[in-house]
């Protein structure tokens, strides 16, 4: 379904996507990475909007930037909003289907069916300028599925949805994945992806850091040093405690000696000890932050693993 070979995309001197090699058979995948990690650049490569600077991109066996017929098999719901205020969803979705070269008579039927699937039938003839953010989001999904693609790519599809809308979106995407069609779902929120699929692609700094199921990624993380941040007026007084243990890789004191960053392989050892140290030394510690509460720190840990800085 998706095949990338040493794919690199440069914007001048800036790397958008960095040497990604990947082969995905048909299935549902979550593409996760913080904002600016290269998710959208990767998606733009997959739809042929961008051509790789190096390497190749093949979708269903063909390069999308050269043979645009393959785009008929792909549906995309981009992260950007739709700004045609005086056009109705009914008109816009029909227009989008028509641009695939589908006959006029079929466009209307396909558009109405897609709008019904996303629950927009009642309001589909209203101008889009009167829609809420959630309604526009559902209209975007409708244009992505209306031409009945084999692969659906979504970029942050939960943006702007209320809890009811999120639940409906999750159901829609689960149904899509269950039907056996391809799904690639980009988000910076892990929980959103976990509710749809257990297959992940982790991207950061334009690099594909890891891929696999949640348990496979957890096993990678188990061997990867993680950073714990300890904050408080007496944070510096914990240094002598960490200096005496074997499970700490490095220590860094920052922020006017009030924040101690501890890099370690097994955070449970720290969690077992730290309360007793604080009590014994009468320390004033205000916060202990773990890496998994901070997606960027988690990805930095994976990046160190990816670079081979960790064995």
């Amino acid at each position: 379904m998706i095949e990338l070979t040493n794919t690199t995309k440069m914007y001048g001197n800036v790397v958008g996507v960095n040497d990604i090699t990947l082969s995905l058979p048909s299935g549902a995948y979550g593409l996760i990475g913080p904002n600016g990690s290269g998710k959208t650049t990767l998606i733009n490569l997959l739809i042929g909007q961008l051509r790789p600077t190096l390497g190749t991109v093949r979708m269903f066996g063909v390069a999308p930037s050269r043979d645009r017929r393959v785009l008929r098999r792909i549906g995309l719901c981009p992260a950007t909003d739709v700004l045609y205020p005086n056009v109705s969803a009914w008109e816009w979705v029909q227009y989008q289907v028509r641009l695939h070269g589908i006959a006029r008579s079929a466009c209307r039927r396909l558009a109405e069916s897609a709008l019904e699937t996303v629950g927009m039938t009642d309001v589909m003839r209203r101008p889009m300028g009167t829609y809420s953010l959630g309604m526009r989001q559902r209209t975007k999904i409708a244009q992505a599925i209306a031409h009945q693609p084999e692969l659906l790519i979504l970029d942050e599809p939960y943006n702007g949805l209320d809890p009811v809308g999120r639940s409906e979106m999750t159901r829609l995407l689960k149904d899509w994945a269950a039907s056996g069609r391809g799904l690639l779902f980009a988000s910076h929120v892990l929980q959103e992806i976990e509710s749809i699929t257990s297959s992940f692609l982790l991207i950061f700094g334009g690099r594909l850091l890891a891929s696999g199921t949640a348990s496979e990624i957890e096993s990678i993380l188990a061997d990867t040093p993680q950073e714990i941040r300890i904050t408080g007026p007496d944070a510096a007084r914990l240094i002598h405690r960490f200096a005496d243990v074997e499970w700490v890789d490095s220590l860094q004191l920052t922020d006017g000696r009030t924040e101690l960053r501890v890099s370690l392989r097994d955070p449970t050892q720290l969690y077992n000890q730290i309360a007793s140290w604080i009590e014994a030394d009468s320390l004033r510690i205000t916060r202990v932050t773990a890496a998994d509460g901070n997606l960027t720190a988690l990805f930095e840990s994976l990046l160190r693993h990816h670079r081979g800085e960790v064995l």
Partner: protein
Amino acid sequence: MNALSLPLDVMWFELRRSLTIGRLAMWVVLVAFPVALIATLRVVTETTAIEPIGITLYFLVPEVTCLLGLLLWATPAISTEIEGQTWVYLVLRRSGRRTVLLGKYLTAVLWTLAAAWLAIGLSMLFLGPAASLQLLWVMLVLATLSCLAHAALFVLIGVIFYRRTMASAVMYTMAVEYGLSFVPAVVNKFTINYRLRGLLAHWMDWEMARTRAENVFGSEPPGTHLLVLLAITITFLGIAFYRVERTEYPTQQEG
């Protein structure tokens, strides 16, 4: 079949979404200002000579009205989609880029041509004895040729200079179509306005004007002018289609 009907569907969609009060007001202004100037001219001058009236009408409609209309409708063909964050939806379509550009070109021609023809028709009512069937058909044909050629030019400028589209188009128009087109050198033969003026003088039988101001009206036969205009239109559109297929326009997305 799709190759013919798809651009028409794009045009229909573009016309549909263009029906806003702001755009309609601009269209009315495009029609009204040459008519108002011609009417004023008839009140303050008593000339019935066809040449000054014909040249004035030519300057006001096939040149100014058409250029202003196309600046507004043809030039931002790509930039409005980029700024409106809708370009990514179009590039994902199998027939998206070229078809949309052709549809937008046709829309720009239709909007502007409608304004130009109406302005010519209304101006004729104020011209009195100077109005003639010959002047009417010459102006209608020149407005049509002006729209087709200038729209191709502005679409090309819009495709290449998608960031400072209007400024680029205005600078090009002032420098080339209103500057170089009057320069008595080979370069003016490659401008649209030189060809249109040549056709005006020839079809209106203004032999004296052609003799006295050859660098303005040219001396080539009308077939040459028409051929060059056709070549300019096809070349500009061809380059625009090639560029729009190849260019990686920003999609205003992050992530």
